[in-house]
């Protein structure tokens, strides 16, 4: 296992360098740089723009700028944002927290709904219940999440039951710990529903087809032949094997956590990473964009690694040696 880990981590380094270099070069190849944001402001003279370019090092060649950035990363410094003049980590940090809380809660909702529903519709294949739930899930899949977000906000305004956007109340700082948790949760309900419901359909369909496929496998027939009750066959033999692809999927979704909810975040005003990143790209705030890209890359790679390790734990057919030779 140690050998496996060292090998995988060693492979990550050139991957990260490759991905970040391509992003860095792409950001530098689009015409204009951060200073151009200010060029149409009559109060700022071209001389001042030149000074700012020099201050931020934007007048240096691409390779030198990238090398400098990489040198900072090697020393665990993400650099200073051009638009905000503070360390990138200071900007990304609080927003990552918002995004991760939202993504985790909506993921939990999705899984809590999708897996039981998937099982039910698979067991009752082609029944009225299967048809109804499948119809509803497709409906959920075909309504775009941002549109659902608009509906949710409108509902909140009409009913007055839920706060309208934001991730916390303005008086959050004056609350005690429990009220803070309650306040956060209060603001989380609608976004969680919006994001969570959208994901139910595809997961549920996957669960359904997995179970249907395994239900007729040889070892399931053997289990039934042994005289095991149907529920034991279902939960111990079918379900355990049906869950394997979900372990791998969970690893990938770790990276999705960071950028996946940008539209909903924007509509429901949730102050996550998505909007920050979008504005940073439009303003050519290179250190800020690169900081987010790096974070996404690392999370994706780590997620894959964790998923592989979890797969070893749940699937006796897979071990570290087979993973390595793949």
């Amino acid at each position: 296992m140690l050998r496996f880990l060292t090998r995988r981590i060693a492979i990550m380094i050139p991957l990260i360098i490759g991905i970040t270099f391509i992003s860095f070069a792409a950001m530098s190849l689009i015409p204009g740089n951060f200073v151009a944001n200010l060029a149409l402001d009559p109060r700022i003279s071209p001389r001042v723009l030149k000074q700012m370019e020099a201050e931020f090092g934007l007048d240096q060649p691409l390779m030198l700028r990238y090398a400098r950035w990489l040198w900072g990363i090697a020393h665990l410094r993400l650099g200073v944002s051009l638009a905000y003049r503070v360390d990138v980590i200071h900007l990304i940090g609080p927003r990552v927290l918002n995004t991760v809380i939202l993504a985790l809660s909506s993921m939990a909702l999705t899984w809590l709904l999708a897996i039981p529903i998937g099982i039910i519709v698979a067991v009752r294949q082609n029944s009225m219940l299967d048809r109804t739930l499948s119809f509803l899930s497709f409906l959920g899949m075909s309504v775009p999440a941002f549109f659902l977000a608009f509906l949710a906000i409108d509902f909140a305004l009409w009913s007055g039951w839920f706060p309208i956007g934001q991730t916390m109340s303005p008086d959050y700082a004056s609350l005690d710990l429990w009220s803070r948790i309650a306040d956060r949760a209060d603001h989380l309900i609608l976004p969680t529903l919006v994001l969570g419901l959208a994901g139910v359909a595809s997961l549920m369909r996957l669960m359904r087809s997995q179970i249907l496929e395994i239900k007729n496998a040889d070892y399931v027939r053997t289990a039934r032949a042994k005289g095991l009750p149907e529920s034991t066959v279902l939960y111990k033999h079918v379900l355990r094997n049906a869950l394997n692809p979900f372990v791998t999927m969970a690893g990938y979704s770790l990276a999705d956590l960071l950028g996946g909810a940008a539209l909903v975040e924007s509509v429901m005003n949730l102050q996550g990473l998505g909007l920050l990143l979008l504005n940073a790209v439009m303003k050519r705030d290179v250190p800020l964009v690169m900081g987010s890209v790096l974070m996404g890359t690392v999370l994706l790679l780590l997620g894959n690694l964790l998923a592989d390790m979890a797969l070893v734990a749940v699937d006796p057919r897979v071990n570290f040696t087979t993973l390595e030779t793949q």
Partner: protein
Amino acid sequence: MADTDSGSRGRRLAFVAIAAAVATAICGCRVSRPRNDHAATQTLYDSMVSDPGTFNPVLVTDSASAVATGDMFESLTRVNPRTTLFEPGLAQSWKFSDGDKTLTFHLRHDVKWSDGAPFTARDVLFTMRVIYDPKIPNSMVSAMMIDGKPIAVSAPDDYTVVARLPRPFAPILSSMQFAILPAHALAGAYEAGRFNRIWGIDTPPDRLIGLGAFLMTRYVPAQLIAYRRNPDYWMRDEHGAPLPRLKGEVHLIVPDQNAQYLQFQSGMTDVYHPRPEEVWPLEQAAKRLDITVRKVGIDTGSLFFAFNRNPRHYVRGGVVDPRLKWFTDVNFMRALAHAVDKQGMIDLCYRGLAVPAVSDVSPENKIYHNPNLKDYDYDLEEAAQILDRAGYRMIRPGVRGDPEGHPLVFRLTTNTGVPVRDQMCAIFKQDLQQLGITVNYRPLDFITLVKALDSSFDWDCVLIGFTGTIEPNDASDFLRSSGNLHIWDPAQPKPATPWEAQIDHLMDEGTMVVDPYKRAPYYWQIQQILHDQLPIIETVRAVTYIAYRNTLENYYPTVWGFYHPEWIEFRAQ
């Protein structure tokens, strides 16, 4: 068997229990606490679209930072938004002497920084030193250079500042409107070369030393900025009671305008700047929401079609592109001016809430706006006649050509992301199509557009807007032929046309006269020249509205800022 059976039943029970727990958790999370009462706490809630970039007033280049720092710092002079004339700020009076070449400010004696230190002339001198420092890029310095030289200032005593000018310079009062920094708190960091990183948005608010009406208490990134009233603020009302009357202010950071709109309706914020399409629904709901919807005024900026007259782009290898000839032909431009359907733009793009723009200076700039200009009426027939007379005749059905037979085709662009500009370009394109002129419209993202305008010069026609200020010399970079924002042909070594030379001359003369009413005619004349020569064609100006709670008193917003903001309060209930 029995074992497994009970096991699965147990699991089913557990599942039901978890589902029930989740359901109760979701319902239980509804927080029932008293609604945050803005009137009882005298705290005004409004929203802003983005996070500030800095809390250091000298480094501010974006509007969010300007809002965030605006109430914490002050300048020597301020503008009365109703008269657009200067009023005392931290300077209680000032005087021009020595043929308008010396300006003496007498500072207030009763002003304290929030850490208790007195405000003195030393702070003014320090701030100017910082602004003039070439290592500190800032937006104040260009307005403070007279013929390329800095203003020499001295402080004969703690409460007097004397500025000596190389020549009379009328914009000086406007130039001196920079926020004063506390020398005692920042001089050390400045000397150590750390000024550009000082007072960033990661600074704890209690370390920001201000002297304005409000002091920052809290900044939560992407959430809000909160302020409390400054108990030592120097201003008093007519009864001698301390100002400001509000106890606090909160700016919620809400990037999405739809969300802002809903939050205002739900009572989370007390103030909202509606878009044109929201004005009518808000007026309808005014009674139910207990709000007032009031017209604020006409946009202070200028939104216009500019035409490229830059030979650096159109003359290649001795060959002159025909487009340069069209755009420098005043007859061609007059025809185009008659083809701009301003009323159509107002009705379609602004729901009727806009007015035609005639001059590049907004009518809200009461002294410097030239009211005598006569607009080019929207009249496609007249436009066609002008084109015919000038030799631009139809060469094929639906295609008009120039006197040399080139078909009239040019490109039109604007920046992406502003729906109103898209629609205005579409209207202009359609009208020109009727005249037989083909317009290829393609919007560009802002930075790409800026690069086309200021370095590659690869553009034909652009719909673009500039913000407006009261001081007419602030537009110097746009009006002067040497200016970088002289958009139709920037940074000319010497004026390309006699009328551009005349504008340059008028700009010079206009800065020599200190009395605003005697100064105005110079700028009226410049507006007349632009109106006649048409390097740009003005379009329309939005009429802005504001909606606010009826419980707010003394709430007088104007396009130039608030009238007496210190008097704003919630009515006692």
